[in-house]
């Protein structure tokens, strides 16, 4: 990255003349900065590490082989952000807008599903399954669309009311069936719902895996089904619930956001960690840098995790006790593992080549999925895991490696470890490779380099709190946490778009957009003239 390093900083120096400071150059931080800059505010983006992008970064996983950390697919990307920040013009281009999925089962069977879930049922052979699946998918997508306003992060305290109003409005228009379904599904587990809708079989197996993978929650535990609905509510490339792969990998979203930020004349300062936020009379007044200097500005948008943004940078004495308590999120026990592998050799036959351009999912039997979650929460490495694999080189020719393949994997669930030792990391890789064998028997022979990324690795690079990269809590807790964190304890001029502001995971940028828009509204109200 070509961000300007913090060279001019010196202790005791006070900078002024700035309207807004964005802390943290994650996707949301970048989006917020772009919005603010575009609106004419003199904006400064401060990033503590030398690179921007938060956990999403390009990195050589082997000599000459570039991998991408953080995410490997785009599941939710706010269409407003794409339009308003002109991300297409700034370089976003989808290599695949709607990836098909192929599910591999324990018994060696496979099932190919069209990326368009609504029409996926047409692929089913027998009538019963087709009907069950069709009805289920229609209902789930309808519910997800209905609930979409609730999954969007709030913009500010007052917005809790507007979310309610938006929902009230759709409640009035909704059929009584929808309303009854929400009452039924609000607390439901994935297993509750699937057992009621499906007979045992591959469809139930793949949906169990898919729902548990997307929501990150144990399929037998309360609230997990709502987590799944949240994923279906997301929109990518204009398509609800779709999975897309951008040219250049997910890091290309970051790159285009950076271009948007630069086009908006925002100054990006990397390697400039913030020590604390200056609060004067319950209003933001600027930031104190780790190096000792101060930058003064009336608007602070914080894209770091809530614990750092509030407890470390603002401090408990400026926060309300109830607010502080709600921020102390319960400790998560689960995390995903990210594995990037280089393989020797390339696919020869057409069928395999075709599959390389799809999303490959290993779906263990539902019992094994349940057991895996139980083991992971108890701190044991599970015997099997749900594995999602893609071949970036097949989707995007630029990512291709000569005479080999790069394979990108996300696997779930694993225990959330603060500092796993080499043996434990090894066990995790072994479980994932075993699952890969189900997808492509013999693949282990071709493995060249294995690169495992766990939450602690990401935290080491970004400086964030490790907990920010653990699996998210239940949807009910995410709602409460998002509402709390975004309210910023009502400190004037402070806006929040860290990971807690978003319901579910994945790059969405909605939180960044909302934080910036709330800041702009307030700025105009205060008489600021951008």
């Amino acid at each position, binding site marked *: 990255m070509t961000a300007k390093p913090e060279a001019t900083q010196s202790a005791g120096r006070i900078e002024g003349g700035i309207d807004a400071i964005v802390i943290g150059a994650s996707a949301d931080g970048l989006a917020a900065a772009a919005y603010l800059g575009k609106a004419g505010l003199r904006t400064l983006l401060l990033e503590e590490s030398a690179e921007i992008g938060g956990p999403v970064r390009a990195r050589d996983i082997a000599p000459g082989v570039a991998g991408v950390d953080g995410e490997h697919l785009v599941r939710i990307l706010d269409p407003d952000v794409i339009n308003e920040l002109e991300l297409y013009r700034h370089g976003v281009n989808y290599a695949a807008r709607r990836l098909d999925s192929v599910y591999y089962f324990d018994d060696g069977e496979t099932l190919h599903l069209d990326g368009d879930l609504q029409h996926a049922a047409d692929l089913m052979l027998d009538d019963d399954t087709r009907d069950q699946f069709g009805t289920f998918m229609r209902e789930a997508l309808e519910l997800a669309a209905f609930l979409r306003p609730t999954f969007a992060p709030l913009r500010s305290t007052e917005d809790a009311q507007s979310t309610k109003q938006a*929902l009230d409005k759709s409640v009035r228009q909704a059929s009584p069936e929808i309303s*009854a379904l929400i*009452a039924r599904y*609000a607390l439901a587990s994935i297993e509750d719902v699937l057992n009621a809708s499906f007979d045992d079989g591959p469809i139930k197996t793949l949906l169990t895996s898919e729902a548990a993978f997307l929501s990150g929650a144990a399929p*037998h535990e*309360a*609230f997990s089904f709502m987590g799944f609905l949240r994923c279906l509510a997301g929109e990518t490339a204009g398509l609800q619930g779709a999975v897309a792969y951008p040219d250049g990998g997910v890091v290309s979203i970051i790159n285009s956001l950076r271009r948007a930020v630069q086009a908006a004349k925002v100054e990006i300062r990397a390697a400039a960690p913030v020590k604390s936020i200056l609060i004067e009379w319950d209003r933001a007044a600027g930031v104190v840098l780790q190096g000792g200097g101060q930058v003064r500005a009336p608007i602070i948008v914080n894209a770091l995790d809530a614990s750092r943004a509030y407890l470390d940078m603002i401090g408990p004495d400026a926060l309300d006790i109830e607010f502080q308590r709600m921020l102390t999120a319960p400790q998560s026990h689960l995390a995903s593992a990210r594995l990037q592998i280089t393989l020797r050799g390339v696919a020869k036959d057409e069928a395999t080549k075709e599959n390389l351009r799809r999303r490959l999912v290993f779906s263990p039997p539902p019992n094994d999925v349940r057991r895996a979650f139980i083991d992971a929460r*108890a701190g044991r490495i599970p015997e099997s895991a749900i594995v999602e694999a893609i071949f970036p080189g097949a989707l995007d020719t630029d990512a291709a490696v000569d005479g080999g393949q790069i394979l990108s994997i996300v696997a779930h669930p694993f225990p959330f470890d603060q500092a796993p030792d080499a043996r434990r990391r090894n066990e995790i890789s072994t479980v994932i490779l075993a699952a890969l064998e189900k997808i492509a028997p013999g693949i282990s022979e071709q493995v060249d380099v294995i690169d495992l990324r766990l939450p602690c690795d990401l935290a080491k690079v970004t400086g964030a709190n490790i907990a920010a990269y653990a699996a998210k809590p239940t949807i009910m807790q995410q709602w409460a946490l998002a*509402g709390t964190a975004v309210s910023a304890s009502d400190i004037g001029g402070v806006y929040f778009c860290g990971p807690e502001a978003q319901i579910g995971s994945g790059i969405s940028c909605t939180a960044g957009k909302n934080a910036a828009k709330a800041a702009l509204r307030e700025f105009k109200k205060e008489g600021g003239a951008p």
Partner: protein
Amino acid sequence: MTAHFDFLIIGDDEASLCAAACAQKAGAKVAMVRSSKSNKKQSARALSSVPNFIWRRLDLQEFDLTLDKVSARVTLLESGDPVVTLVGGRDTKAALANAGVDEYALWEDFVDETAVLADGGFINSALSGASKDGAASLANLLGDRTALSRASLLAGSCRALLDDCFEDNRLKDHIAAHALAPSGLGGAEPGSAFALTDYFDDDAWRMRVAGEGKSLYEILTAVCERSGVKIFTKPLGRMSSDGGKYKTAVFDDDEKLKTRVVFFATPDAAVEAGAGHCAPGASIRGAGTATAAMRLKLSEKIDAPAHDEDAIFQIIDDGDDLQDARDAAISGRPPERLPVEFEIAKNGDILARSAYFPSVFYADNEWRGWTSQDRQAAAMQIRERLTSRLPGLANLILKATIDITGAVSGDAVFPDCAGVVVQPSRHSAISAAVRLIDRMMAGDG
């Protein structure tokens, strides 16, 4: 002509009888289905409290009935003194101090806090399934920050809530054991915090029928009969619904009746009737495990731990046992360190119970039902846990019987769950059942 009813209450316990009698007296037409096997189990076990308003509505003073509050809740951990809490604040303070627990002030605040958490609340109404208007209540919840924070605490784990409040592990283990054990829940699961509010409900203190006299079960049966509840004592064959307002229940002998609502006064009754899957948020209620109830006849009365014969006792080694046990049970294995609760009946029998058994077993890559060996093993396991805390018990046992409920059995009687309502509470089952049926009659759902 098929008889039409407002409620069909399926169950054979005090909560079902109370709900039936109260609804009938309030003007509803109520039918009740009880299991046909003879019932011995209602006589000795402590039951949830009968609040005054039910007492008044059913005029229970006309019967010669005295109920005593269970004196204490006692947890027998692996080592150290028993942890004891009682009805009275002052006694609890002294008892906790006795066990070396110095957090009584926090305990008091925690009791108040759970009462606030339990008040109203989205999860409550969603759980009872009585509210049809899920979308509107969700909208209300999301619009109210305070209510949402409260709901999110209940949606979290019991362990997280306890960790937030207390430092003392013995106290945390004690609360978790008493709150979770009746439903076979683990302390780390989402939603397990909900059991805490139920446990701290005023009506959650258990009662025992004092002395000889008639049992509450017999008295309530008489009240139901007198008030005109139609009681069927034969097996239900199937349920069907034609999409209209009424569901049809068909008995094994082909007798039919129609009902607007099928009502289960306890989650256990729903499981027993094969309608466990109709309970919204089955996972919060600890579905998927079976309960073993054991009665041990002794040659002489045993010395009660903590010198209290009228207490309810929990046996756990440590708070994590609860989650480990639940994890094992839902994976189809009997737990290694089985949580067991027990009480000492008036006649000196020991009544022990554990809700942490698998409802189906998983072995050699196959699921299978309970066998007589499993029953024996379960009985052995409960006995071992009891003798670990009650020295000398082994030599006193004359006879032991075991009864398993919640095990997966034959066909599902309830193909679909429309019109089926399951009251979720286990701790304050009687008052919760009556309040729920009241709300339904008042038109909420």
